[in-house]
């Protein structure tokens, strides 16, 4: 007899993996004897608990906002739908924000999915490739014509988003810092930028124009076209100030000057 019931290793593992998440009575005959043993719960509990623990570690602001009990219940529903695909559990939860956006019990917290996106941004920024930072002084004295045609390349650790419907960034920041928001929160759209200058993840609020400017840079557009995108978002934007703010935050790693303009 092989594999508990004459089954191959692959069939055994299929049945065992399925039983970890299935109702106890629904086990494949290849593992029914194992699932019936009380000790099977050790595996079932460890797998589920490790997944939920990982999500809780990866989404600290969401956890603080909704409380541990609510979070773990939501995480449990997510685990049932989406297993980790890599053993690096800091990568687990890539779709958790999208899950929360459609999660009926979270309907009263419309900003929750965006707070989850920001927690996720923090992890992505923390583990992103190393690259030099472009500092503002390297642009001083640059020919304005050359600069307009050049491309600002976002730093691999830079993450940003514009949240049009809610102050998701302020909510995230206050919960991330474990601070209680001081005073009344102004209910308006906000942008967020996370960067990693000096090896520590930092964050700052940015306006809609700055977000569109970054989007254009990430798409490989020239500074001139990125300025147009910023002004499209907000006709009153001050592009020079936007560029200075973003450089100061560490959003860029280099300036690429197309060959035909550098001559």
């Amino acid at each position, binding site marked *: *007899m*092989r*594999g*508990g*019931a*004459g089954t*191959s*290793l*692959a069939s*055994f*593992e*299929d049945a*065992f*993996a399925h039983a*970890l998440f299935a109702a106890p009575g629904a086990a494949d005959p290849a593992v029914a*004897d*194992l699932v019936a*043993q*009380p*000790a*099977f*719960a*050790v*595996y079932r509990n*460890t*797998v589920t608990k*490790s*997944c939920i623990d*990982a999500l809780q570690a990866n989404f600290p602001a969401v956890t603080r906002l909704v409380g541990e009990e609510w979070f773990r219940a939501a995480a449990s529903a997510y685990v049932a739908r989406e*297993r*980790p*695909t*890599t*053993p*690096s*559990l*800091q990568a687990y939860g890539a779709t958790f924000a999208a899950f929360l956006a459609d999660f009926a019990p979270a309907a009263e917290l419309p900003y929750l999915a965006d707070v989850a996106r920001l927690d996720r941004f923090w992890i992505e*920024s*923390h*583990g*992103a*490739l*190393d*690259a030099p930072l472009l500092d503002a002084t390297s642009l001083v004295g640059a020919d304005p014509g050359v600069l307009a045609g050049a491309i600002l390349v976002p730093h*691999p*650790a830079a993450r940003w988003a514009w949240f049009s419907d809610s102050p998701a960034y302020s909510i995230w920041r206050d919960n991330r810092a474990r601070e209680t928001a001081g005073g009344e929160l102004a209910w308006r759209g906000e942008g967020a930028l996370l960067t*990693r200058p000096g*090896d*520590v993840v930092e964050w700052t609020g940015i306006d809609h124009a700055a977000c569109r400017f970054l989007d254009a840079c990430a798409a490989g557009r020239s500074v001139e076209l990125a300025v147009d995108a910023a002004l499209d978002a907000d006709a009153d934007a001050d592009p020079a100030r936007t560029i200075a703010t973003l450089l100061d935050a560490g959003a860029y790693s280099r300036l690429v000057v197309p060959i035909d303009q550098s001559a």
Partner: protein
Amino acid sequence: MISTLTAGLGLKPQHYDEALACPAAGLWFEVHPENYLVDGGPRLRWLDAIRERHPISLHGVALSLAADAAPEREHLRRLRRMVDRIEPVLVSEHLAWSTWRGAYHPDLLPFPRTNEALARIVDNIDAAQTALGRNIAIENPSHYLRLEGHDWDEMPFLDELVRRTGCGLLLDVNNVHVSANNLGFEAAAYIEAFPGAAVMEIHLAGHSRDPALGDALLVDSHDASVSEPVWALYERLVARIGPRPTLIERDDRLPPFGELLAERERAHQALVPAMAKAA
């Protein structure tokens, strides 16, 4: 280098500064490489900084050697990069599976020790050792279930892996204690018969009683200090096979660093006279 290692500790982010500064003789640290498989950033620099002062052992939890599939190429490639970066004193993995058909199950799952499983695991260890450019140590698992259909007892199975792949073994004494309790065999006899020459590393950890089943089911929970019966088995083992790098494993309910260091000192004190004798 291995001869200078005595007892080590798992590296926990909460204890990072104390770990970095700790001057204890023979101290080394063990990490799960999966926690450091990032593209860049401060996490890798923490590890680099520890590595500058202390030897590091990589203890993988996710190669899934007992899965009926070859280890993922990309995972092996990233592990190799980490091995080249860290130059670990030891690399180890488990006799278990976790990744299966694209999903990672964060646990060490059991399997029937069949001839088919043996052939597959031999191939997988070969693949891992080739990709990493070095031999690895394979850890004996904790058992909870009475699993039918084995063609092999555990010890001859481990022996055969050593014979066919040249791998070493990592003897986790707590796993033996827990498994002996749960499956009803004699832990001391297992430790006595274990192939000592192949042992590259020893693990010591705490366990807990299952909340529902109590003493009938011990769980390898790594959330308590090492128990006295496990220390007794360990001392017998070292007396028989000689000193080996020994890890105090603690992953949950972390005490202050000083408390772990005191536990580590007990293993260190057991190893020092054995080293003098072996020298």
